[in-house]
């Protein structure tokens, strides 16, 4: 297969073999339905609750504040839709931002179609939300503020603590989509005044198809999936025991290494950013230089279209992405890059590189060397570059 360098860990991660090993017995041996009476299955209730505890601890939360879901998208949908229902008598306005993941944005748009008022806050050129803008957007009928912890495309980490404080001060619920941040930066729901938090296991070396929603005790919460009495009657469906064990195990492993991983990855990330900006002309870094996920780098190369770049990198065995994976079916430029003010044609030429602890300096060097060649080659082909050079000459 030749070279294979996986640099799209923001899209999904490899499930840790230790995680898979922990899951295995729950498929063919301890396969009981945790809601059953007999001991064979009831033991799985215990196992589940251990995983819940691991996750709760990692957030400074209580065990019964963690609700398992099928992933980040379900958690986001649940948080928004259920809050809007439970707090309908208080108001009908929610505040979010223009750079949320589609799991929030499309849900908010859906809610708009049901008569909910939604404010989509602007961000600055680095993708930062201004806490004062949050404050200014609050109305008497505001029931929820939902601001992502860190952006999935440009990696910017939002001022969650400040926003949490403003929410608390105003008695408004605060939800954060931490799918990209959880287990990549430290999070304490008390310190940050977070009332609800979404996460997804496959973003931290856990399995796909499992995630959770943290819901602070006291928050009125309605079911999103109605039915059986699982998850304290809040989320119906036979528990995905192997998935839950996988997520718990991944959380345990990731929590233990959080600091050193963050340090390692951010040094490598900075090395990557420095080399690219220095060695490839007409290039910009998207997202905040400092307030950024340890494993994320996002560049725009002028005169270049993203897909060609991805395919050429793929031919060299390098996996990267141009925006979020789940919208790659779409041909529109990223709403995030437009929100930070990039013109369309530059937004089209962006590249997201997301590292893992397994990424090496050699990988990065190989990436940058290939990138230089590929960018040069695509620019050769680009009518925009031609026009640009002609104009430059005239000057």
């Amino acid at each position: 297969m030749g070279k294979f360098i996986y640099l799209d860990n923001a899209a999904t991660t490899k499930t840790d073999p230790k995680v898979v090993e922990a899951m295995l017995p729950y498929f063919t041996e301890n396969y009981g339905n945790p809601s059953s009476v007999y001991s064979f299955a009831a033991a799985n209730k215990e196992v589940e609750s251990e995983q819940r505890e691991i996750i709760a601890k990692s957030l400074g939360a209580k065990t019964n504040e963690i609700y398992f879901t099928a992933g980040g998208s379900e958690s986001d949908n649940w948080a928004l839709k259920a809050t809007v229902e439970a707090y309908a008598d208080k108001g009908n306005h929610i505040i979010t931002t223009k750079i949320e993941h589609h799991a929030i944005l499309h849900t908010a748009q859906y809610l708009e179609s049901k008569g909910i008022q939604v404010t989509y806050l602007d961000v600055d050129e680095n993708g930062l939300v201004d806490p004062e803008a949050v404050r200014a957007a609050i109305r008497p009928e505001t029931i929820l503020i939902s601001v992502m912890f860190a952006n999935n495309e440009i990696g910017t980490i939002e001022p969650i603590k400040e926003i949490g404080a403003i929410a608390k001060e105003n008695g408004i619920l605060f939800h954060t989509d931490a799918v990209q941040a959880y287990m990549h930066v430290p999070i304490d729901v008390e310190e940050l005044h977070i009332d609800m938090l979404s996460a997804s296991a496959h973003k931290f070396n856990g399995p796909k198809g499992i995630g959770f929603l943290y819901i602070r005790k006291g928050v009125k919460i309605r079911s999103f999936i109605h039915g059986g009495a699982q998850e304290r009657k809040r989320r119906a469906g036979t528990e995905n025991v192997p998935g839950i064990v996988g997520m718990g195990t991944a959380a345990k492993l990731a929590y233990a290494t959080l600091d050193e991983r963050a340090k390692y990855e951010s040094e490598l990330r900075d090395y990557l950013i420095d080399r690219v900006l220095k060695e490839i002309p007409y290039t910009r870094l998207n997202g905040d230089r400092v307030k950024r996920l340890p494993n994320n780098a996002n560049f725009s190369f002028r005169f270049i279209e993203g897909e060609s770049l991805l395919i050429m990198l793929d031919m060299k065995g390098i996996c990267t992405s141009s925006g979020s994976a789940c919208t790659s079916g779409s041909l529109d430029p990223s709403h995030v890059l437009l929100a930070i003010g990039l013109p369309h044609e530059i937004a089209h030429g962006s590249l997201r590189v997301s590292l893992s602890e397994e990424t090496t300096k050699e990988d990065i060097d190989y990436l940058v060397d290939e990138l230089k060649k590929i960018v040069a080659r695509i620019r050769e082909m680009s009518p925009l570059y031609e026009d640009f050079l002609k104009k430059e000459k005239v000057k």
Partner: protein
Amino acid sequence: MAYSEKVMDHFEHPRNVGEIENPSGVGTVGNAKCGDIMRIYLDIDDNQVIQDVKFKTFGCGAAVATSSMATELVKGKTVEEALGVTNKAVMEALDGLPPVKVHCSLLAEEAIHAALWDYAEKHNLKIEGLEKPKSDIHEDEEEEEEEY
């Protein structure tokens, strides 16, 4: 993205990339806003035979491959024959494109037409069946079912 081997080949080794100095005709279509621009240069001799053709494309893999294939298809053809190189013909020559990428092949057809139009204008010719190219071909693009 499921590209055919032909598409990948033309993407990896695009034919006829470049510019022609003092071309007989040049056409640029597309819109950088939508993420694609294609420019075709034609060198046409006195017998209205396309002697040389070059392209430049800012666009996705399909756009690059269709540009490359389109230039191959029109090279050596008469102006009249070149008009018959439709996006369908380009797609077929490439063993097809994913549905979301069909419009990229339209771009190639449009770029050739635009270059021919430029040639006709410069030489005060009227080419039967050639219409003034639209500048933005992305207006009527459709994806699958609408609602969410």
